């Protein structure tokens, strides 16, 4: 069964453009007024995701990656968050949508998988009942028995052994990996066309992480849904993503096809991310080169390029440009869909000549 327009899907508010991707975000800005000033969590963010494709969003804590995806579900309180820009799902505008319409959308068209499954599942309710509730919410005609059958079917689908018995367990009776599977089952129970996975494997062991990533990929193929995966692990990105969005200080700093970004990164922050994690197969002479300093405050973001206070390649840009002018998000030397926000004129050459020999001496020689 595919996700092709199930009966209960709220009819997209007409005028959906035929060729438009499933999710289109344009100039999204999210600000939170606080006692200390306005926190600019996300600024001028644009991206899109097609059905059947995976977008990976990378960034440190506080880079706005979770805030931007929560906006897609309309999870920000209108009283405390100021949201501008546009989020269109199948052509329907989510920014400013009424709560009643949002409720129809959540869990049905868009579902989210959270990082900490123990905190996201209710400890007092049986796992099966929580799944059945999610199903009945969007299938009001379904009987309790149908919902339960559906819950068991989904638990089976995500690889929980003996689902007919485990369906009556409480979340604490599940292991960490099984809880994450149950969350995925809950997310997929209504065949959503967009699944947002916020650090879905961060708290898990590598072997379990591998199982969950495999599962997500299998399910994506089966349901042909679009997936946004938020993570700080570039290895996970390399396995999962078709496109990558690198965020820093609430802005997109590099965006493009996964292979382009990981093989020919053109923004020093992406270089920094690549060089601060070692690889299990890399040359032992490879170095771990940290990004100096700390992520910037969102209350008073740095002037110019938000990354300039930590950038080790600032000296290669003439004058005070990095400090004074915010670089535009423009196509880099390799053109096409690969855009970056940086003043460097020849980033590819600098990466090959300076960065790569330090972080992957073996790769640098091959080229």
């Amino acid at each position, binding site marked *: 069964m595919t996700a092709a327009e199930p009966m209960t899907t709220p009819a997209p508010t007409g005028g959906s453009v035929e060729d438009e991707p499933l999710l289109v975000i344009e100039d999204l800005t999210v600000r939170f007024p606080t006692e200390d000033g306005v926190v600019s969590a996300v600024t001028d963010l644009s991206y899109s995701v097609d059905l059947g494709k995976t977008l990976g969003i990378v960034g440190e804590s506080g880079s706005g990656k979770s805030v931007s995806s929560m906006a897609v579900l309309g999870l920000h309180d209108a009283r405390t968050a100021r949201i501008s820009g546009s989020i269109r799902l199948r052509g329907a505008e989510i920014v400013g949508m009424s709560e009643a319409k949002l409720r129809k959308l959540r869990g049905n068209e868009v579902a989210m998988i959270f990082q900490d499954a123990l905190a996201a599942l209710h400890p007092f309710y049986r796992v099966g009942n929580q799944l059945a509730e999610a199903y009945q919410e969007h299938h009001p005609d379904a009987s309790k028995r149908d919902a339960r059958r559906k819950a068991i079917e989904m638990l089976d689908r995500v690889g929980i052994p003996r689902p007919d018995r485990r369906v009556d367990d409480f979340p604490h009776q599940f292991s960490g990996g099984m809880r994450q599977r149950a969350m995925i089952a809950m997310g997929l129970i209504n065949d959503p066309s967009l699944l947002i996975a916020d650090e879905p494997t961060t708290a898990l062991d590598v072997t379990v992480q591998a199982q969950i990533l495999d599962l997500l990929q299998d399910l994506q193929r089966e349901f042909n849904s679009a997936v946004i995966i938020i993570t700080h692990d570039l290895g996970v990105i390399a396995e999962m993503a078709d496109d990558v969005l690198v965020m820093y200080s609430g802005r997109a700093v590099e965006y493009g096809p996964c292979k382009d970004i990981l093989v020919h990164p053109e923004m020093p922050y992406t270089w920094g991310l*690549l060089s601060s994690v070692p690889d299990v197969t890399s040359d032992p002479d490879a170095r771990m*080169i940290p990004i100096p300093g*700390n992520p910037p405050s969102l209350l008073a973001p740095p002037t110019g390029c938000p990354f300039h206070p930590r950038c080790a390649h600032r000296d290669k840009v003439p004058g005070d440009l990095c400090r004074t002018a915010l670089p535009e998000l423009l196509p880099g030397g390799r053109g096409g869909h690969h855009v970056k926000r940086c003043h460097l004129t020849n980033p590819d050459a600098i990466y090959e000549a300076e960065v790569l020999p330090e972080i992957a001496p073996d790769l640098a020689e091959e080229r």
Partner: protein
Amino acid sequence: MSHKTPEQGTGEIAEYEVPETSVPENDVATFSELVGHTHAAAKLDPTAEPVLTVENLRMYFPVRSTGLVRRKIGDVQAVDGISFQVPTGGSLGLVGESGCGKSTTGRLITRLYKPTGGSMEFAGVDLAKLSNRELKPHRRNVQMIFQDPYTSLNPRQTVGGIVGAPLAVHNILPKNQIKARVQELLEVVGLSPEHYNRYPNEFSGGQRQRIGIARALTLNPKLLVADEPVSALDVSIQAQVINLLQDIQQEFGVAFLFIAHDLAVVRHFCPEVAVMYLGKIVEIGDRESIYSHAHHPYTQALLSAVPDIKQAVTGERRERIRLTGDVPSPIDPPSGCRFRTRCPIAQEICARHEPPLLQIGKRHKVACHFPGRLGEHPREPFTARLLGVDREGQPDPGSSPATDLVEQPGYAETWFDLDAKTIGRA
């Protein structure tokens, strides 16, 4: 502002500067300078004497029944007979899934727990047997860096109080000299001496971890147990802390027991690695042996599960060994080999006999009945003759079991060379 300003009067009015939270200094080094401050992967010094020798270490936590009379109904065998050595000034990595006993091992060595059995010899003293009072003079030699910098620092103490406490507890310096020493330590870990009077909440995660490291360094320990020192930190900060730990190791010659689940970080930091599963060491060896020539199916599965950035370069998907299910309960571990319930190559002998940890290389030991490189595991159990059993694990009257299979902490001069099918010699 000079940090030598003497405490003014009663010291009631503490002067605080505006904390420079997250706005870093404006003069960042150039890239080449940055590289100059980093280290390549640590190298093994094969001649180093062990600073710590652990032999047959065991830790069982009793499981009690509920109700009034809390009878003991079993044991969690968190650590069940492990042996290893940490070389002076070197580092040993301890990896494994959660619940494999790696953190318990760290806590045993720092004697936060008293072991159920076994020995931990440090500088000629067996730490496992000492009473708490006898232990106190030795504690300064073994210190710990904790995982979570948010919960391991007392929020109501100043940084100076936190880092200086060990000096006061062990009566090492007179009170009036503590401040100077603490400020020196803060500089060693890359903080400013002016941070002395601040509280932990004024610092970011990476800076807090530096405070934790300064505290561990206060007493000039010879061995640091680092339990997941970077896993709670942001990616860009992890590399800062790893480089700091490498600086410290080179400058002060501290040995590390480095506990982590991130195989790539361990590979960078530790020339020697032990892989644990359900309270046992299943494979131990130098970096090359473990990461390029792993012979245990569990190590191979762990390595193949690590997501790899290089895939993006080649565009190919690596074949993964899928481990099914979860780690079994350590209260009732499987008979024989503990990994057999999830092992892709398990046979009958695996359920009957526990595989001994055999040395198969100069610095490489593995505990498996069918040790071999990925895809080259032997068909016949390699260990059957040594255990005096046939290939199914039934007693074989015709053969005599080897008697010298007791697990030793170090490496022997001779080993079983699996490739040449002979006894290898150093």
